[in-house]
């Protein structure tokens, strides 16, 4: 009962955030039509600060001041939304100004390095259900890095998965890209073996 009560309150909070927003954009798998029963609806609002991550809804906000900053316009998320987002409210005049920055690529590379190094330390203590999830997560992150380095907006995960399934030379390129990262070679070998042996698609 407490859980239900709280969920209802959360929905109210989400509604407030949506009502106050100048712009409201759906992005991710729902926007592109590749969602499944487990997908969250990803929503960006331009307006008052909000960050809500609930089952079924992932809502983030960017302030009207920040939306035109070079940091936002160069980010992975801004470029994703400018290409794949569906505007429910507002016009998104900023979307023509997005241009993936070198910083977006560096942030992604650093994230992968930390993720891989953490996984190496914790792998044996993680349940197999997480092995599967992290294989998928690391592989998708490498794919995103590959796209960011080419200044291409990153599509939703389901589309990344179809790239991976359908092209062996593409897989080889992703493996080569991972070798350029600042990751201990033993750790890298371990993770690549995990990814390439993986049947975890989603």
């Amino acid at each position: 009962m407490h859980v239900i009560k709280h969920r209802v309150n959360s929905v109210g909070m989400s509604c407030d955030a949506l009502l106050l927003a100048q712009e409201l954009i759906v992005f991710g798998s729902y926007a592109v039509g590749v969602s499944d029963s487990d997908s969250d609806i990803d929503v960006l609002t331009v307006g008052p600060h909000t960050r809500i991550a609930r089952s079924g809804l992932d809502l983030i906000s960017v302030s009207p001041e920040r939306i035109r900053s070079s940091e936002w316009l160069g980010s992975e998320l801004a470029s994703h939304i400018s290409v794949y987002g569906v505007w429910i409210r507002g016009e998104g005049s900023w979307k023509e100004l997005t241009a993936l920055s070198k910083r977006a690529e560096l942030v992604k590379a650093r994230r992968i390095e930390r993720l891989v190094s953490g996984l190496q330390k914790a792998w044996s203590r993680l349940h197999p259900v997480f092995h599967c999830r992290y294989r998928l997560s690391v592989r998708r992150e490498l794919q995103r890095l590959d796209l960011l380095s080419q200044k291409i907006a990153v599509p939703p995960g389901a589309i990344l998965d179809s790239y991976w399934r359908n092209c062996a030379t593409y897989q080889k390129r992703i493996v080569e890209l991972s070798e350029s990262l600042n990751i201990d070679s033993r750790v890298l070998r371990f993770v690549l073996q995990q990814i390439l042996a993986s049947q975890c698609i989603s």
Partner: protein
Amino acid sequence: MNRKKTLKIVVDELGQFADDMDISDPEWTQILLNQRISSLIKKGVLETSELPRKLRLTDILEMLDLEMPDGGIWDNAERFDDVIRSYGEEPDRESMEEARDCLAKIIESLRDEAK
């Protein structure tokens, strides 16, 4: 497993997570949380079939089905999830500190319930 025993196990696991949590490294923090969840699965507190694809601390507390009183525990769990899950951008140090504070309050509430 009875309620008190379950609560004690959860408090121990989350306490270990809070001790190990590194606010400068969001990826490692998420891995540590998943490590504690793995331990809860191993101890029979959680079922793998119940785990949603995008796992949140709130989901874990809900799955325990402990009928915990409000006491801010849900607010803190949701705030923890909101802060720690980032879409493309990294949570800053201040946000990670807030997440750690939320976690401490959750543990305190659970510990009170376990008495």
